[in-house]
């Protein structure tokens, strides 16, 4: 997994010849790989009640084999009780060999809202890039308590994924806010959080609104296709989510009945001296089936529900990025229109010059002096203004055109990475589902095969009187 991430980074960011690239190319044996073992081993056991250091399976090993120049890990949740509120923080561990970082290792604590802040910063800074999604505020399973272990673990896993995606992104990871997030001490960080840089955010959102009203001339076909594809994908995943929930419910009911059944066999065996071993064997097989089914039920959240939910969020992030790209295009088109309008106005005014030579000013005079300027004077004013604004607009149009091309490039690159990432993630999701079922059937098969000899009994009397059952 680490390898593929790395190569993708190398391909896409071919234009970005920064110091970052150089570091990646050299792939020096940094202190990272040496440190990894020790750091992993020395996981700090926090004194708080709910602290644990569980991570999604593969990432533990990744950290050791990882040769990325920026590695991040989210773990070790802790509950903080303050006078006004209670909240959870997570430990963020960073290891880096990048030059712009003063140290090679950082450990900070951040809470969910800090992640929200970071994401907003990234959206503001890179409106035309695909920013990975965050888990929602009341995410996953509505019925889970915000402080329940499952909820916290689930949220932590998603935050970990988010941060890793950011860290692996050649452009996003270089952002100042990211550095601040990963390294700043609590007091320092608080200052950054408070500083207002909302203007840009507000501007981009107003363009969003505009996009709703204004119809773009022609979205590039490729983005139209992406838009359609993403909509379909979102649809399908949503349907899968619904079906999986219905199946889950049915399984719960099935499990209930299994738990009703095996005690009946046990009870029955008490009144049947001869059949007792057979009946007890049945009871045990049914009970084992129940346990296997229980396991399927319990792993539903982590195997299916959570990854699905995350992908739906990711699809929303893609839609947002597409919308932001659209708004850049709209901005450009608006300035083009504006320029056109002004040029036409100028031509019209020039054309009128010949006609209205002797026109007197309109309006009435008050004490001999006219209050309004003459038509000619007005025209002169206008032409003057236009003479200034038109060149400005021309420059603006050029800038915006660049912006559009840039935005398209950025998004294109990000989408390409996303496509392959998505394919792997979805493949992994459904494979997990299939493997879970395979394990379930293997266990049940074993349970039934093992009791068959006990039931058949193998007593002598069975050979004498044949059973009378009709097997049609």
């Amino acid at each position, binding site marked *: 997994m680490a390898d593929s991430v790395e190569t993708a980074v190398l391909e896409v960011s071919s234009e970005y010849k920064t110091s970052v690239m150089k570091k990646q190319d050299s792939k020096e044996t940094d202190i990272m790989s040496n440190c990894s073992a020790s750091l992993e081993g020395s996981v700090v056991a926090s004194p708080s009640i709910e602290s644990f250091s569980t991570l999604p399976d593969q990432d533990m090993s990744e950290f050791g084999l990882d040769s990325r120049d920026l590695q991040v890990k989210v773990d070790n949740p802790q509950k903080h009780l303050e006078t006004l509120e209670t909240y959870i923080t997570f430990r963020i561990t960073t290891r880096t060999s990048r030059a712009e970082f003063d140290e090679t290792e950082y450990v900070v604590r951040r809470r969910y809202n800090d992640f929200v802040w970071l994401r907003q910063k990234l959206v503001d800074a890179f409106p035309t890039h695909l920013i990975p999604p965050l888990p929602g505020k009341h995410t996953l399973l509505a019925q889970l308590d915000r402080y329940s272990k499952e909820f916290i673990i689930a949220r932590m896993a998603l935050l970990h994924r988010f941060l890793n995606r950011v860290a692996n992104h050649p452009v996003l990871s270089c952002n100042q806010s990211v550095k601040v997030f990963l390294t700043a001490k609590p007091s320092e960080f608080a200052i950054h959080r408070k500083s207002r840089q909302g203007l840009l955010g507000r501007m981009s959102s107003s363009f969003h609104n505009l996009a709703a009203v204004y119809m773009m001339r022609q979205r590039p076909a490729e983005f139209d296709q992406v838009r359609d*594809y993403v909509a*379909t*994908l979102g649809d*399908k995943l949503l*349907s*899968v989510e619904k*079906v999986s929930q*219905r*199946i889950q419910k*049915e*399984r719960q*009911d*099935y499990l209930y*009945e*299994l738990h*009703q*059944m095996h005690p*009946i*066999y046990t009870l*029955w065996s008490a*009144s049947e*001296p*001869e*059949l007792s071993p*057979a*009946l007890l064997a*049945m009871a045990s*097989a049914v009970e084992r089936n129940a346990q296997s089914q229980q396991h399927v039920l319990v792993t539903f959240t982590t195997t299916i529900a959570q990854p699905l939910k995350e992908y739906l969020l990711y699809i929303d992030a893609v839609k947002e990025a597409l919308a932001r790209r659209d708004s850049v295009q709209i901005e450009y088109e608006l300035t083009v229109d504006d320029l056109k309008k002004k040029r036409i106005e100028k031509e019209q005014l020039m054309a009128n010059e010949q006609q209205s030579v002797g026109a007197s000013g309109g309006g009435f005079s008050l004490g001999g002096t006219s209050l309004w300027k003459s038509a000619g004077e007005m025209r002169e004013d206008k032409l003057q203004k236009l003479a200034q604004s038109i060149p400005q607009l021309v420059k603006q149009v050029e800038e915006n055109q660049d912006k559009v091309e840039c935005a398209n490039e950025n998004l294109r690159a990000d989408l390409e990475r996303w496509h392959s990432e998505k*394919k792997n993630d*979805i*493949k992994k999701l459904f*494979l997990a589902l*299939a*493997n879970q*079922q*395979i394990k379930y*059937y*293997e266990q*049940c*098969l074993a349970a*039934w*095969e093992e*009791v*068959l000899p006990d*039931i*058949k*009994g193998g*007593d*002598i*009397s*069975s050979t*004498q*009187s*044949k*059973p*009378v*059952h*009709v*097997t*049609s």
Partner: protein
Amino acid sequence: MEDNKMKEGFLEKGNANFESRVYEKKDSLLDHMEINVIEAEKRENGALNIRDFYTVYLIETKVTDPEFNGAFSKISALWRRYSEFELLRTYLEVTYPYVVLPPLPEKKVMYTWQKVASDTFDPDFVDRRRAGLENFLLRVASHPVISHDHLFIGFLQQEEGWRESIKETGYLQLAESKLKALSVSVRLKQPDKRFEAIKNYGNELQSNLSNLLRVRARMVERLYGIHKLHANYGRIFSEWSAKEKEMGDGLQKAGHYLDSYAAGIDIPLEEEELFADQLKEYLFFAGALQSVCRRQEMLQYHLERAESAVASRTTEKDNVQKGKTGLMTRLFGSADTDEVRELKVNLLDQRIQEGKSSIRNAQEELNDFAANALIDIERFQHQKVIDLRETLAGYVVLQVKMCRKGLQTWTHIRDCLEAIP
């Protein structure tokens, strides 16, 4: 220890360990004849313009033993409807009250779930009933006592006149009174411990089987739901695969396997209904067992009443002899003369003698019944163990099959997904 054995109704013969006990197989009709219920047909009762439909079942028999001459004919085939089976069974019940009589397949479908046909004309239901009726006939035909009954053989082979000959036995009148008596519960002074134990066992068997059947039906309903929901996955995957380049193939193939996972549950669950039918048979068998116990109680009740009648007459006679008079004479009349007294005593003596002979008869009836019943109950228990073992084994084999199938399908699905580049 003794109680345990009694509970199963087994007669203790020395220290025989049941496991190694040799069970005598007695001769029955089935040793000489083949019996099949091969078909069912819908018929119409066109009388009086009322379209009344009913189903008839074709019974075929063939004598397989050339030396056997207890049959009406070597080969026969005739149609009977369910109500005629009921007639037969009622007749057998009245005629052989000590036998744990094989039950008929259920009249109305019990412990059902959505896929089980409950309409009596549904072809699935009819076929299961056909199988149940065949099973009933085979059980009766393999019974050492009742299989030799002429009216039973007549049922199998005698097309014309069977209904008349059965009515001639007058069993109907007997049936009404006897069956009515069964519903009354009696309090015995000294209940027979053996039959008490058997009755309790019967209750437990009924309770366990009915619970099992109920839960199984609900369980199967859920399992059905789980499988069918996967067809939704299949549909989604198929539609989705069209929009994907690299994932398309894998998704489509996986989708097909998901569809087959959903469809693949139908046949195994149909097969599992057979298991349910076998359990139901034993549920009804438990009822037959209870009937035998109640008949024993009735007989014992009659005996006890006869005994107490004689006891009171004897007391009365004593009183008369000692000159003690009843209330009435003290109020109204004179004391008895010697003549009158002697008359009374003689009358009472007569009654007492009659009563004593009644007691003897009742005792004999009870003893015969008890002896026969216990033998048949032992036969029943023996057969029950064999049958239930087979039923349970069949269920487990079916479960193994279903697991293997599920495993195979999901392995295919996994392979399709793994093949995605």
